[in-house]
């Protein structure tokens, strides 16, 4: 008679198992991976034409052999515009989420760890910020930061050029740097205002983790508060942080696209999916392709992110049983 030893599985392994069984989440993961890969890799290959190259002959073309997704009213290749735009949309979403997650995690962790009156005050602040018309404050904030971009890009240019560089060289650097710096107000403004949910989640987690014995042990060993909080407590909150960060990304992408659609977000030559959709909406009647392709890629990305986020939440949910 043989003895069957069942191996114990960690919480994380269990969750991954559940995630793999969730078909929608897996599909979302593949789909998102493919889109991100295309957006990252294709611009470096000769497959994509210059997204801003105009052509007087090939205007408003339907998809065909030469232009896979057709062209817009200025004869620009929609195929390459979609992937260049996707790169910017994804970059903005990721950077903004990083800003939001950093603020949210730090704020929530401190609030939960210190507790008592500090916690009460910090959470009232979050309550107050929750009651604001977001879009509108973000628009205003972004406008104010725009003024600073000239200063920032000068600063970045100085960083990358030698003191005795020729004007032509400086100009080269400037054209490379400027589009990136122009995006900064957008993600700072959105990020500075979308950390609220994450901070609440992290606070609740920290509150429950800080009562556990190992924290007591760490304290009796004489570790500093910062070390206990950031080395011992926070690593135990990683699950929820990842889940809610994933769930934040689609909201932020939507936000960026709405701003760009209103003409208050990214400015040319930066063209995110939001900018492309706005352009496409204007051409809808004569040239539906210029709306369809950016919209499809944008919606697919949102759909994948939502599926992945939902899947992660279901997988890590302690209520779901081990089966």
């Amino acid at each position, binding site marked *: 008679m043989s003895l069957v030893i069942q191996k114990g599985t960690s919480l994380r392994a269990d969750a991954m198992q559940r995630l793999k069984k969730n078909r929608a989440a897996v599909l979302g993961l593949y789909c998102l991976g493919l889109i991100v890969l295309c957006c990252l890799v294709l611009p470096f290959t000769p497959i994509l034409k210059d997204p801003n190259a105009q052509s007087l002959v090939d205007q408003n073309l339907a998809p065909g052999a030469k232009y896979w997704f057709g062209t817009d009213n200025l004869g620009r290749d929609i195929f390459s515009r979609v992937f260049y735009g996707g790169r910017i949309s994804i970059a903005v979403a990721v950077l903004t989420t990083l800003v939001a997650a950093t603020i949210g995690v730090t704020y929530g962790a401190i609030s939960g760890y210190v507790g008592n009156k500090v916690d009460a005050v910090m959470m009232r602040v979050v*309550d*107050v*910020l*929750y*009651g*604001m*018309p*977001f*879009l*509108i*404050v973000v*628009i*205003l*904030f972004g*406008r*104010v930061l*725009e*003024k600073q971009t000239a200063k920032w890009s000068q600063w970045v240019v100085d960083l990358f050029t030698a003191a005795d560089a020729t004007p032509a060289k400086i100009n080269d650097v400037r054209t490379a740097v400027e589009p990136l710096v122009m995006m900064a107000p957008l993600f700072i403004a959105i990020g500075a205002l979308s950390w609220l949910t994450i901070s609440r989640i992290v606070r609740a987690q920290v509150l429950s983790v800080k009562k556990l014995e190992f924290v007591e042990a760490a304290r009796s060993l004489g570790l500093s508060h910062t070390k206990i909080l950031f080395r011992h407590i926070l690593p135990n909150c990683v699950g929820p942080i990842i889940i809610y960060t994933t769930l934040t990304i*689609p909201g932020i992408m*939507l936000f960026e*696209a*709405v701003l760009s*659609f*209103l*003409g*208050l977000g990214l400015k040319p030559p930066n063209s995110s999916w*939001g900018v492309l*959709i*706005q352009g*496409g*909406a204007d051409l*809808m*009647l004569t040239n*539906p392709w210029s*709306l369809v392709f950016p*919209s499809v890629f*944008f*919606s697919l990305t*949102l*759909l994948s992110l*939502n*599926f992945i986020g939902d899947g992660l939440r279901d997988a890590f949910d302690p209520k779901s049983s081990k089966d």
Partner: protein
Amino acid sequence: MFQKLFHRLLQGIVVLIVLFTITFFLCRALPGGPFVSEKALPEHVKALMMERDGYNKPVYEQYFMRLGNLMRGDAGLSTRLSGRPVNDVIAQSFPVSFQLGCISMLLALVVGIPAGVIAAWKKNMSIDFIVMTLAMLGLCLPSFVVGPILAEMVGRRWKLLPAMGWEPTNVITWLLPMVTLGMVYAAYLARLTRSGMLDVLSQDFVRTARAKGVPMHRILIKHCLRGGLVPAAAYLGPAFAGIISGSLVIELVFQIPGLGRHFVKAIETNDVNVIMGIVLLYGGLVVLGNILSDFLILWLNPRARAQS
């Protein structure tokens, strides 16, 4: 109950003052100063306008002056619309925006909540799958994609409904904007209602009721609906805020003469008085929406009432 109401109102006032402070300083920092226009203004006109709006006073005096004026309900004069009172601008265009917001919210409730209840009832059956797929699509098809497509196809190609414009008494002109704006929130509400209902349906008293032979529709409506609606009610506050700012986009797409257009224009031309007026109006509405949503939860959930 009254204590709770008082507490919430107080918090609402704090929110508005913070919002006022933030907008005040953001407006001061707007690139280009308060009087940018395409034509350069003569110096003496500019000086007079600075005088009129109190820009030559110390900042703290300006702050309290503006706060006082706004509290009295006087939002000052618009610079872009050559001195038209902001109150006028708001009185003229706000009713349209408000109407749009209200009927979209209504649509979201009327579609979203029954859909969620049905999906929870028929859990894991094809109708649940269909409803949830539709809800997911609703979340991922942003209104600025759906709006132009609807306007173009339904409005211009098939000529079924007017593609743009808004008449306060003509229901037909409401339909497309209402559907475009309400859809996303209907989708959210359906998802929240479904999960809320599923939570309640898995509780013991439901099993008891079923064992007693209470028909399913009665269990759903009499026993579960109230508890199952709590997550949806909690979402109403944020949804209200979202619909209010979402109407900016919809108004642009369907060319509706609401506040959204004024706001976008005011931002582009640094029309500070209009910006402040609209921001605080919207802020007040969001605060009200949140208070209403809180009280709805108290009414729905006796346990929350006992705690407060």
